[in-house]
């Protein structure tokens, strides 16, 4: 019952973000008949379309999707760098979605949502030392006297495993792993409740990646933060996340407890994603039995003025049928334990029987 009263830290309800895109006729193309009307419909790119989710206190939610699926836009909406077209974002029950992105820096909510960027090199100003980079958010959001500031920055650096003698260095004098540590120290400097990790290890070597992931896990436990972990690397996502959301062309297609989604993917797209990552169970020449692999072909549908009725994955989906073009599939519970929160937006989810018989028709055997 206590679950019922426990309010989530972040509650995002049907978020929408559309961008207007130019649809001007070419120089020699015939002008549209309604060119004189001021309210002529313009093309809209639906970057984020009806996205609803929550993040609990101390929870790690994974967001998985490929480039162009709208995950960067979603991140920018949550960090309030971008205004919503529609929807609501509540932080601890308080609505922050309506606050304009411009000027959000002055709001009391600013320190509570922070972010670690994908490319630590690009996210550090080449003209700022590591110390200045970490001190900047403190000075702007939670000012401290000079002496205390120095102590605080040093404490943060130590917490993130950054040797203190490196604080005077500029980004180009630091290694990739050290830059990542500076980026993390800066993000946790103002003690956020929600930390958004945007592919924090994508630019790092594997040996460094492990260290940074372990650091993030450790910091979460020590500081009680919640994470939204964005990545395209499923092997990495499942290391850190309690729950995952899979995004495709602006919509959430599957969500659920991480282990459940990875073990029993219900959406064909999730299955294809999982199928595409190297598994180490198929080392060439080892004589291991070939694992059936699901490959999807073709290009994604256009996100510009998409039909509200057609499933976004239709056309690439091996299970696509006429029904998929007649009504947009909505998220609904799957699996034996519906209460566990595993939902999928598909009319024909990969069922348990499918999994057992490995539905021959849709799985290409790539030996």
């Amino acid at each position, binding site marked *: 019952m206590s679950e019922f009263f426990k309010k989530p830290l972040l509650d995002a309800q049907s978020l929408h973000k559309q961008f207007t895109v130019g649809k001007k006729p070419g120089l020699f193309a015939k002008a549209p008949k309604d060119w004189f009307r001021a309210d002529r419909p313009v093309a809209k790119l639906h970057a984020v379309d009806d996205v609803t989710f929550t993040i609990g206190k101390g929870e790690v939610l994974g967001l998985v999707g*490929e*480039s162009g699926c709208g995950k960067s836009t979603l991140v920018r909406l949550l960090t309030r760098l971008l205004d919503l077209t529609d929807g609501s974002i509540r932080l601890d029950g308080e609505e922050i979605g309506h606050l304009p992105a411009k000027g959000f820096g002055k709001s009391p909510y600013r320190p509570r949502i922070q972010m670690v960027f994908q490319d630590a090199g690009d996210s550090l100003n080449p003209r700022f030392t590591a110390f200045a980079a970490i001190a900047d958010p403190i000075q702007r959001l939670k000012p401290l006297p000079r002496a205390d500031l120095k102590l605080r920055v040093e404490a943060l650096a130590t917490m993130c495993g950054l040797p203190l003698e490196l604080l005077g260095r500029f980004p180009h004098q630091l*290694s*990739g792993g050290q830059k990542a540590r500076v980026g993390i120290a800066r993000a946790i400097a103002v003690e956020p409740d929600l930390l958004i990790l945007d592919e924090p290890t994508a630019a790092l*070597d*594997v*040996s460094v*990646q*492990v*260290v940074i*992931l*372990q650091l993030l*896990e450790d910091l979460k436990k020590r500081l009680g933060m919640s994470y939204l972990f964005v990545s*395209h*690397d*499923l*092997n*990495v996502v*499942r*290391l*850190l996340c309690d729950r995952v959301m899979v995004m495709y062309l602006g919509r959430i297609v599957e969500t659920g407890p991480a282990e459940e989604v*990875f073990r029993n993917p219900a959406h064909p797209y999730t299955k*294809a*994603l999982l*199928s*595409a*990552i*190297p*598994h*180490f*169970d*198929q*080392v*060439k*020449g*080892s*004589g291991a039995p070939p694992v059936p*692999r699901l*490959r*999807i*072909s*073709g*290009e994604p549908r256009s996100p510009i003025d998409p039909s509200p009725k057609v499933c976004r994955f239709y056309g690439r989906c091996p299970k696509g049928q006429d029904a998929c073009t007649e009504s947009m599939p909505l998220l609904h519970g799957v699996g034996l334990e519906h209460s566990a929160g595993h939902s999928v937006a598909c009319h024909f989810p990969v069922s348990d029987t499918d999994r057992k018989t490995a539905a021959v028709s849709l799985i290409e055997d*790539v030996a």
Partner: protein
Amino acid sequence: MSAVPVLAVDNLSVEFRTRGGIVKALEQVTFSVNKGEMVAIVGESGSGKSVTAFTVMGILDAAGRVSQGTASFGGLDVLQASEAVMRDIRGREMSMIFQNPRVALNPIRRVGDQIADVLLQHGNVTRREAPKRAIEMLTRVRIPDPERRAKAYPFELSGGMCQRIMIAIALSCAPKLLIADEPTTGLDVTTQAAIMDLIAELGAEQGMSTLLITHDLGMAAEYCDQIVVMHAGHIVEMAPTAELFAHPRHPYTAKLIAATPKPTARLMDLAAIPGNLPDLRAAEIPPCRYSARCERRQSRCDQALPYVLGEQKGSMVACWNPL
């Protein structure tokens, strides 16, 4: 497999002249690629894997210098060959695809024409046939609607599509060797798999050998016959893929495998590799460049690096105290 390898690199050392001094980027690199084989060079950034590829292609940066060794491609030492000879070989017998296909393509030329250019340059088709052959190539790399795509400019195509075009260009003259330098880095996961499948299939069809440069052990495991592990300009281990993953012998290889996230591993199970690469500009680099990071270090590790051949053909480990 024929006895004579397609590519045999022997005792190759490369130095770079920089402000901070001479960087010994490669030292005594020896490996070979047999006909029809796919070989991976695996390593982290700074390991020298791309320098190896560039040296073999003869497109080493001007600051770089081959200080010793040979690289024999079908009997010809590509390190000694003249630029004119190399120009003829590149693209015809030995092709390369790069990490960022969009940059490697000419942005203001239709992709069909770019494939036709390569066909024409190497002189095996007539001007009239070239566009038709270009479309054939697009079909072979599984580009849907090839007639229409041939008229597209690179910016109109997705990253995965551009990489397919690059592959079409690279394979248009049926080369004996394809060097793929991180061909799927930066592409989506599903696209990555499709591109690697394509390279593997076309390679098998043409009997072409492939040298895959990658940082992704998982990919190397899935597609390659033989794996060469590099660390700081040395080959630390090489072995047939199954052998390498079943019994890694060099401590670095073992750590690298243990550090790679796998579907079954938990975060605490993954190993971190402590320490950094040694400064390759220093006058005195320890003979084993991994020794400062190594847990199995012994006093004899300060002697010249041993190259211990394994029982299996093509396996070697450069370590005094292998696992």
